[in-house]
């Protein structure tokens, strides 16, 4: 449980009845979620359940077609300035890392602070080096992403997102593309981040991580939230049969 969570009166993310269609396919079917400052949310569920789509609507990589999403007091609409403001406050880490292969590690991290926040190069590099130390790979600063292992690349991606000093971090299956021996090094960084009080939404199947740091867990299926609760409730006494079945499949191996 996280001591940093603040009162429910002040949600940093508020989703009301969010719907999303891909053509005729109804991908999100009325999602309601409130995330408080400092809360760590884990979203899990079978593939195709809409959990990635949902997390991507929060920084408008996917557009929702009905309902309301309010991030840090700003409502997501078609207004480009609102979208860019929300993206500045929201860091995102992807399954496939999506580092910029033509830039060195340090340039990957400093690019957005320099070009979006307007920091000087020296300022941005200083912060970048601090972040690289925090994720444990300062010695890789001058290398290109292609020269790093998957786990190192994902840690750079986390540092890149943190360099913008976001209020919220979104993780879209951050360990799913990693070899087993590299998952831990990435999860360790995420645990440290959660303990530092960062607001996080994490889409993952890593139930050990969820048990250790999640404040709230949401089980998605067929574009809906089937069930939510604390890890104790979810692992100890899930109410819904679908949740039980899924958890038994995930935890059995």
């Amino acid at each position, binding site marked *: 449980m996280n001591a940093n969570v603040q009162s429910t009166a002040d949600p940093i993310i508020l989703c009301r009845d969010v719907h999303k269609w891909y053509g005729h396919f109804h991908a999100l079917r009325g999602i309601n979620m409130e995330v408080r400052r400092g809360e760590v949310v884990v979203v899990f569920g079978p593939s195709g359940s809409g959990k990635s789509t949902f997390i991507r609507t929060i*920084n408008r*990589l996917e557009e929702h077609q009905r309902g309301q999403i309010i991030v840090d007091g700003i409502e997501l609409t078609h207004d480009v300035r609102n979208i*860019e403001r929300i*993206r*500045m406050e*929201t*860091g*995102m880490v*992807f399954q*496939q890392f*999506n*580092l*910029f*292969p*033509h830039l*060195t590690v340090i340039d990957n991290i400093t*690019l*957005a602070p320099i*070009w*979006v926040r307007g920091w000087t190069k020296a300022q941005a590099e200083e912060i970048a080096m601090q972040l690289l130390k925090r994720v444990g790979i300062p010695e890789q600063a001058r*290398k*290109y992403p*292609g*020269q790093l292992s998957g786990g190192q690349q994902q840690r750079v991606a986390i540092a*890149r*997102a943190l360099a*913008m000093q976001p209020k919220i971090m979104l993780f879209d299956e951050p360990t799913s593309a990693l070899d087993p021996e590299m998952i831990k090094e990435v999860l360790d960084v995420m645990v440290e981040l959660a303990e530092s009080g960062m607001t996080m939404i994490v889409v993952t199947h890593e139930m050990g991580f969820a048990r250790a740091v999640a404040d709230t867990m949401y089980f998605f299926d067929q574009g809906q939230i089937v069930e939510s609760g604390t890890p104790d409730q979810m692992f100890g006494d899930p109410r819904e049969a679908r949740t039980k079945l899924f958890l038994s499949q995930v935890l059995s191996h």
Partner: protein
Amino acid sequence: MSANTPTVSKTAEALPPPTERYSVVRWLHKNLFSTWYNALLTIVMLALAALLVRGVLEWALAQARWEVITANLRLFMVGQYPVMALWRIWACVALLAFLIGMSWGIWGRMQRGGAIAFGALPFILAIITSDESSRLALIITGVAGVIGYALSWRWGAALQRVSIIGWILYFPILFVLVNGFGAEESVLPTVPTNLWGGLLLTLLLTVVGIAFSFPLGVLLALGRQSKLPVVSWLCVAYIELIRGVPFISVLFMAQLMLPLFLPGVTIDRVVRAMAGVVIFSAAYLAENVRGGLQSIPRGQYEAARALGLSSWKMTLLIILPQALRAVIPILVGQFIALFKDTSLVVIVGLLDLMGIARTVLAQPDFLGLQAEVYTFVAFVYGVFCYLMSAFSQRLEATLHAGR
């Protein structure tokens, strides 16, 4: 654990790869005489090659009348550019040598052999030439190159910015020097473009063609992907229209139509030809760049957007650098094609390298020397195309460092 589990040695030793014994005889046997029919093929081909080489050498060394080249060398190089103003061309060449030397020292330190060969070239030419003023100019060129190289060895990376600024400034300087300004008596009297010719004109058409069609092509490629229907429709229309028309007709259109569209404004004939080259080349470049743009995975766009980059910053910082890098070989192929296509300006009455070749062949003294003249022209085109292609390979290797 069951008893028949294979035992694993403590540490598997790292062994060197198996080496193949290498000898001339073995190589010959393996590659040329492995079977009786391969042996036969080798012998027949060798005989044919020997015949061909003998024929070419006999012609080149004994029969060919190369004096047609030496007597007209100035025509081939600069056309009818006035002798009094030739120093301006040489100044451009020397400045170019200086910049190449400097850039080579900064970015190409590994290619020391190439640098020495390249640097020696002007001095070797200076020894060969019989013309005193050319010899002096060639020596100055060589020295300029050596100085540039030496400077960059001494100060290296500190000169990077200087050399980039130098390259950017080079092109305006080139035009001021070649074109000149002011009256007959001034320091740099204007040389009318109808006197420009030969290799000089070919290279100017190429440089202007590349310098203007490249940005235009990139803009067209981006425009084609635009979400605004008017923009993308216009770009598609332009690209498909130009690609559906032969280069010669674009050149004719530029010569004949531009004055019609812009009445009252007289546009120089050479400038009109340059416009034709740019218009034509941009459409092809746009399609090549589009190929690069389409090779960028979605994740790159998403990562850039998620960081809060605006559309144009994303395009300039993330998408274009990767897209252009991916299509360097195709782009350079397009530039080489452009270089060779400039020979078609003969059709609209300009005397580029190919045009000069035809006027030389029309001189009564040199009738019937097509073989010599066209061999020489082909050689010059070949050398420049090779240099462009070699440069592109170096560029690719440098840009892909660490990937």
